[in-house]
Each structure stands twice: as structure tokens, then as C-alpha cells.
């Protein structure tokens, strides 16, 4: 019996970890409520899919059920409703959390290699390929 309890405790231990502690408060008004204006709501959804949930980190706030993601969705919807543009809301969050909050890679001083390296590799591959093909065709011309 004791072994079973110890085993269950072991399984349950991660569940008690502080990162999973959550509040029992109801969600923010606009966390799960769509805006009445379908155009604004579409803008809000598009924006929410490009913002990272700070608690879960590998989900966008549109996909996450973490209370903080709900609070972020509330900010997005109520700010758009108040007349801010999606870019303004995005900037407001980036000012506070940096690039981290962006779930859509943007080109910046630290992220440019992400975009530059694939292009560079493609150029190198292209150059090598051209050289080889060029050599082969000149070889066959000589043989002919």
C-alpha cells in the first residue's frame, strides 16, 4: 500500500509544481468572448495568432487556455475595440516583452541570420550546381 501511495505521489508531484498553479478567478471579459464587429474580430484573431503566450511559450495566445493568455486576448480585443490598430497593440506588447512575445518571426538585429542563412545556402547550392552542369556540358562538347 505504501509503495502504491509513494508511486502515486511521484506521478502527482509535477502537477503540484508552481508553474501549474492557477487562479480560480473567472476569465477576463474578452478572453473567450468575440467582438461584435466581425471585421474587428477577424483582425483580433489574426493578431492573436502572432503573439506568444508568455506562460506556455510554445503556443500562440489564440491557442492557449492559460489564464494569462486569456488576459492577453482581453487586451488585444479591448484595445482594438478602443480604436487602436493591430500594429499598435503588437508594439505595445513588444515594448514590454521584446521579440519574445512575437510568435511570428520578424527581421531584427538578432534574427536576421535566420532569414539570411537559407538564402545564402540556396545561392551556394545554385552556384555549385551551375558550375557542375556547366562543366559537364563542356565535357560532352569536347567528347563530341
Amino acid at each position, binding site marked *: 500500500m505504501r509503495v502504491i501511495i509513494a508511486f502515486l505521489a511521484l506521478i502527482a508531484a509535477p502537477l503540484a509544481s508552481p508553474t501549474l498553479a492557477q*487562479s480560480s*478567478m473567472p476569465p477576463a471579459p474578452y478572453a473567450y468572448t468575440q467582438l461584435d464587429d466581425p471585421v474587428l474580430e477577424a483582425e483580433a484573431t489574426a493578431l492573436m495568432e502572432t503573439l506568444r503566450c508568455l506562460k506556455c511559450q510554445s503556443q500562440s495566445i489564440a491557442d492557449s487556455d492559460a489564464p494569462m493568455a486569456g488576459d492577453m486576448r482581453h487586451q488585444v480585443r479591448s484595445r482594438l475595440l478602443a480604436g487602436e490598430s493591430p500594429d499598435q497593440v503588437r508594439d505595445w506588447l513588444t515594448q*514590454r516583452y521584446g521579440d519574445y512575445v512575437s510568435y511570428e518571426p520578424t527581421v531584427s538585429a538578432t534574427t536576421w541570420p535566420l532569414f539570411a542563412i537559407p538564402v545564402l545556402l540556396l545561392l551556394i547550392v545554385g552556384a555549385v550546381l551551375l558550375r557542375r552542369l556547366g562543366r559537364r556540358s563542356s565535357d560532352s562538347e569536347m567528347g563530341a
Partner: protein
Amino acid sequence: MRPVYLIPLALFLFFAGVAGYQLTQPKQVNIPSQMIERELPEFSLEPALEGMPGASRADFIGGKPKLLNIWASWCVPCIAEAPHLERLKQEGVEIIGVAVRDRPEAVEGFLARYGNPYSRIGADDISELMLEIGASGVPETYVIDAEGNIRYQHIGDIRENHVEMLLEKLEEAA
């Protein structure tokens, strides 16, 4: 074989090595706020429980630098930092609390059990202040100077060895 053919293999091994190494490293969960050395945003929060005042930006202006402690009664590390906040209070530091997504009766129960080092506690029911200040979890503690500027952010619970450091940061902010 010409050594140049080994380049792709070497690259592959390098990337596999980096990926393998990263897998063994604990996940970095601290997201530092970009609001350090900037003004504390305007905010005003209702009291988190009866009998204590709420919190606003104006409460930080004037006097000595203060601590802004973001916590919650449902947060386990907040229990661990309670005695160290108490010590900071005994050293004469004013600590203004913000209870995130919390109920008055839960706040009251927490303070009765673990002590109350706060001069005021605002209720942040929808993480408004958290998002304004760039906090990504509880607990977090900020040093705010008398002009209302954010001078330092401490992520996670305050441990015994952080008390001296925070006192120094408060000194620097004066």
C-alpha cells in the same frame, strides 16, 4: 576523397551536437521585462481586500525607493518568499503588493498564515498591471525609485541571499 566532401558531414555533426546539447539544458523560462530603466506605466488598482488601500502609480512617487511585489495567494513560491519580504520590511523598505487574479478571502487567508509585509495591495484581476510592466509570472519584484522609474526586476521568489542584493538595489535607486 577530397577533404571538401567532409564539410557537409562536419556541418551535420555540428548541428546535431548543438541540438543534443540544448536538449540536456533546462528550459529557459525567465523572460526579462523590457521596461527596466523606463517609467512605471500609469495604473490604478482597487484594494485586494477590505481594510487595506489599493495601489496606483502615484503611491510610488516621493519618499524612498519602494518595492513592487507581484504575487498571488495561489502561487506556491510566494509562500517561500514571504519571510524574506518580512525581513525587507523590517529593514524599513516599503513594499506595495499587487495580487494577481485573486479573491479577497484568499488574500486574507494568505496574509493571516504567512504574514503581511505590504503597505498596500492592489487587485490585478485581469493581469492588467502584469502586462503593463512586462511581467510574465508570479512572483516578480520590482525596485521603483521615488520618481516612479522602474530600476530593477527580480524574477521568481526572493530567497535569503537576495535580500542584501535588493537592499543594495534600493540604495542605488535612491
